[in-house]
């Protein structure tokens, strides 16, 4: 009897790790972090992103819940639309169960710790899975019922921009990735893949002339999506890694299309099941991409949608791609990993930050408590070698907070002589979407050593005597 109760309690605690739980916590503990918009808006008419862009212009980055978005049929959608979830590190910290105050290095280090662990998923019966409350297959499916967002002016259509999942046909591991999915028809999507993990899986199916099963997890707890951005090598099962990120086993349920051969997240708000037919390519894009610039129109794969399953009152989710929502999400998984790698060689590394000004990817700020000249360059080279997104590395001393860009730029201004402290490395693998690259693959990387030299004197930073500052705390005057 007591054993049964324990199991029930565990099950209850597991079932609370869903998106609603997160929204409730943000609304309760993060004043100003959630903005509810009750007006009708047309997501496919740029009205959602117009509101987000106007908020951004005022320096406001709340998570926004559109309660009455229109669907692609022009009707009020049955699904509220949640976006801009990841535009604040505070909310990302909360998504991992940390306090809002732990949003800087604590957050990236906690991510790194969880990324190193695995938690086996838990299989549920169909009846217990919230995502199976509504099941549509075949002609019952009409993607026009969804409030799909058209983000930027040059986007040709609304895009679902959350995470397709694919399963390796040889090893069986699941891979989750953020990939853009262009609306093409009530049961048809386009999909863009770069030559990374899902691309490899799809290629294997195509070589066997088989369709690639794909499941788009349209909406789930934010820890699911933070976990999806892990930088683990090909072969790692992302369902296990996401479980570790969520702090509990990811609950799974058989898909409608492939049964137990392809499990889907049971606590998702909504999933779309489909197949990528082999050898079929259609025009797709352009699309406003993560750097804040457009990726060009391409010949890309398509998805024939086979099933749509969701909670009865599902919340649809979107990422404001090319903006802070996209940049913070990209930065956190890389910061912790880079910190750990650098620490192995430069033990005095203090913090690593990929700032929003560098799209959370291209610029990397590293602070070290330098003991020996040359350590700064070692730290920079590790960051460049570890992550092909990183293009410009700024290394600063331990008195500089890499999360404070003004301090980093101060160090750049006062501790750098370009002819001595800047190194240029040509012909390194870059990212195809980085707009300044004039080669498809190769880029130029830069190291800026903004640390003080160890072996000679250097002007000290001004300081007001600490003991006097402590006597005159400003709380008395404010």
């Amino acid at each position: 009897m007591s054993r049964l109760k324990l199991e029930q309690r565990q099950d209850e605690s597991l079932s609370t790790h869903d998106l609603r739980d997160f929204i409730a916590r943000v609304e309760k503990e993060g004043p100003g972090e959630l903005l509810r918009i009750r007006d009708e808006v047309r997501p496919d008419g740029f009205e959602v992103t117009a509101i987000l862009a106007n908020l951004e212009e005022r320096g406001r980055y709340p998570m926004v819940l559109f309660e009455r978005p229109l669907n692609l049929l022009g009707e009020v959608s049955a699904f509220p639309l949640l976006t801009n979830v990841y535009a604040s590190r505070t909310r990302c910290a909360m998504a991992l169960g940390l306090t809002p105050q732990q949003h800087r290095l604590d957050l990236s280090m906690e991510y790194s710790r969880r990324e190193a662990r695995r938690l086996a998923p838990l299989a549920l019966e169909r009846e217990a899975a919230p995502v199976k409350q509504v099941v549509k297959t075949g002609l019952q499916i009409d993607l026009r019922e969804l409030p799909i967002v058209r983000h930027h002016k040059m986007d040709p259509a609304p895009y679902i921009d959350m995470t397709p999942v694919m399963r390796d046909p040889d090893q069986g591991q699941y891979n989750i990735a953020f990939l853009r999915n262009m609306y093409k028809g009530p049961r048809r999507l386009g999909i863009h893949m770069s030559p990374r993990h899902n691309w490899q899986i799809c290629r294997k199916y195509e070589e066997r002339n088989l369709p690639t099963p794909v499941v788009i997890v349209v909406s789930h707890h934010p820890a699911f999506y933070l976990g999806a951005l892990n930088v683990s090598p090909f072969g790692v099962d992302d369902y296990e890694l996401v479980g570790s990120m969520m702090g509990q086993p990811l609950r799974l349920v058989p898909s409608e299309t492939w049964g137990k051969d392809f499990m889907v997240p049971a606590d998702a708000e909504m999933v779309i099941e489909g197949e990528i037919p082999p050898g079929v390519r259609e025009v797709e894009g352009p699309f406003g991409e993560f750097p804040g610039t457009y990726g060009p129109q391409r010949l890309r794969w398509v998805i024939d949608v086979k099933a749509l399953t969701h909670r009865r009152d599902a919340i649809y989710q979107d990422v404001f791609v090319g903006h802070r929502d996209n940049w913070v999400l990209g930065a956190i998984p890389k910061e912790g990993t880079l910190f750990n790698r650098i620490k192995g060689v430069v033990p005095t590394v203090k913090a690593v930050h990929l700032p929003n000004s560098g799209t959370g990817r291209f610029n990397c700020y590293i602070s070290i408590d330098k003991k020996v000249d040359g350590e700064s360059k070692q730290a920079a080279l590790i960051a460049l070698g570890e992550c092909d997104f990183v293009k410009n590395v700024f290394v600063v001393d331990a008195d500089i907070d890499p999360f404070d860009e003004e301090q980093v730029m101060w160090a750049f201004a006062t501790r750098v002589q370009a002819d001595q402290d800047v190194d240029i490395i040509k012909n390194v693998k870059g990212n195809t979407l980085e707009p300044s690259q004039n080669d498809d693959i190769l880029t130029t990387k830069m190291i800026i050593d903004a640390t003080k030299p160890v072996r000679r004197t250097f002007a000290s930073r001004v300081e007001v005597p600490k003991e006097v500052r402590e006597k005159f705390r400003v709380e008395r005057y404010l």
Partner: protein
Amino acid sequence: MVKHFDPTCPKCKQAFHVHHEDLRNAGVKLLCPYCGERFHVEEADSILEHDGRRWKPGAGARAGQ
């Protein structure tokens, strides 16, 4: 950045980015993201090539048109 060229839509006269390697010589119709018009590369009102050269395809320039 991958090489792209910018065709101008023959219908709405707006330009957009197209991946050079995928679509410059693929013979498939491009999709204007602004007005939904579908047209072959040679039917573009003008083309800004990736090297900065701009030119206007002649009327009926596409073979067989």
